[in-house]
């Protein structure tokens, strides 16, 4: 990947709402080229989406999240991708990853109540034939998500004018 494309991605990871003009200024590309690159990156599947990081505790909205560990046993007809596709179907699933170590899948789930989340596990994950075990961990507090800190950053303690 060339350096300009890399800084284009850096800029978007930092702030997906960056305007085309500001992306152009930060990358040294002109605006038309920025648009072109973005289209290419989207088409190739490198840029999968532009979404907001929300601290749900700060709004008047019940939100329960959990990380569910899932163990599976594969057979000749079923591989990891098959199981993953099934689990990913549910809108409650925020992210789904295949892991090394003691369990196979880590599923980030959220819903408007604990019932929602446990319902997802008992009705949509546990019944799958390949699934042998699930462990659900409820999230008690979020401090940082996708690089964004939820705790208020300390004030800048630098002096305002220095050599």
């Amino acid at each position: 990947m060339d350096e300009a494309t890399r800084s284009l991605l850096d800029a978007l990871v930092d702030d997906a709402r960056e305007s085309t003009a500001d992306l152009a200024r930060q990358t040294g590309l002109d605006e038309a080229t920025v648009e072109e690159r973005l289209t290419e990156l989207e088409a190739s599947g490198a840029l999968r989406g532009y979404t907001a990081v929300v601290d749900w505790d700060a709004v008047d909205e019940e939100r329960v999240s959990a990380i569910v560990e899932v163990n599976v046993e594969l057979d000749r007809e079923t591989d990891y991708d098959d199981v993953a596709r099934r689990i990913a179907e549910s809108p409650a699933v925020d992210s789904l990853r295949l892991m090394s170590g003691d369990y196979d899948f880590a599923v980030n789930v959220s819903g408007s109540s604990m019932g929602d989340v446990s319902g997802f596990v008992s009705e949509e994950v546990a019944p799958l034939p390949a699934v042998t075990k699930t462990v659900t961990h409820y999230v008690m507090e979020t401090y940082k998500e996708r690089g964004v800190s939820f705790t208020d950053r300390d004030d800048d303690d630098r002096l305002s004018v220095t050599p």
Partner: protein
Amino acid sequence: MNGGDPRDSDARDRGGDDPTGAGRGSVETDGGAASGAEASEGEGSRFSPADRVASVPPSGIREFFEIAENRDDVISLGVGEPDFTAPWAARSAAIESLERGRTSYTANRGMPDLRRAIAERVTRYGQSYDPDSEVLVTTGASEAVDLAFRAFVNPGDTVALPTPTYVSYGPGVRFAGGEPLPVHTRHEDGWALTTEALSEAGVDEADVLVLCYPNNPTGATMDADEMDAVAAFCREHDLLVVADEIYAALTYDGDHQSVATRPGMRERTVVINGFSKAYAMTGLRLGYAMGPEAAIDAMTKVHQYAMLSAPTTAQHAALAAIDRCDDEVEEMRREYDRRRRYVVSRLRELGLPVAEPGGAFYAFPRVADVASDGDARAFATELLEAEGVAAVPGTAFGAGGEGHIRISYATGLDDLKEAMARLERFLS
């Protein structure tokens, strides 16, 4: 941001209850403690500074700082240090060293494994130094700069200083009894130092030349050819060179060029570098000097009496910084680079000419054409008063900075965007 200028905090913090002043007052004057405290500052004070101290004018940075501090809506583009925090690996190494009770002095020259790590690290710039005899760990690059002047400048020696440049060299030369000789670099040359400028200023007769590339305040870097030419001049006129390369890790358009790697230059150059900028470790106060054994011996002689050793906790942090923080440094560099492109584009859109800054985290646009009387100081003051944007007038960095302001992009993009919007309003 909080109050107090580091260069002056002693005077400010002690204020009126300087115990020395009060004590003297009660003995020598009849005015009691209060007048005694005044006597420590007033005309007849026992503490009239030595001539070489008195000869140094007050800092232009400090003057501007005072105006900026009096407002609370200020977006500061005047900060000469990273807005990032030191990488966690470095901070945790400092904490761990304290937990393990590593609170003694180190060897005068610094911990041997840190010196080895430094020597290994700078091979990426083509530099090769023996960690045992050619590396000295100092309390910030600042100390190394001071040591170099004290070790090699005789009273009356001429020390050539390209201008505009970092604020410490001129005063440092004077404290060592030397005479600064300004060498003007130009916007049109991208602020690179040229042999014409060196000849014109009479540097052929000088004893020492100070180089600071990437440069504070211009962000200028020297390309290979420009550096070759300056090196040839230094050899021809037998100059000793002090190369402050503290921004070496922050270059954006090409590899860092060190004068010390040119033929015949290693033996006449002291290279200074540090952890403040690359690792965002300004408050830990750690730098280093590298040079031939005789140079490092002489500097160590001053250092061992004046400083004993650099802060031990910071040395542990620095070792971890070199060993484990390359990714963070690269991440910070890439973010500076995006801000740099952003700021330079915006300045040009606003009609302010600016030479492409290839390193550090500064841009140095010309404001002479839009300032009243072409005066950078007036421009910066009006910008601060009208729009609450602080940028340091170029004159704070020497006469060569006239007509320009320094814009630091060691500030988040959101603030940079707001600052540029305010600057746009100010200019329209």
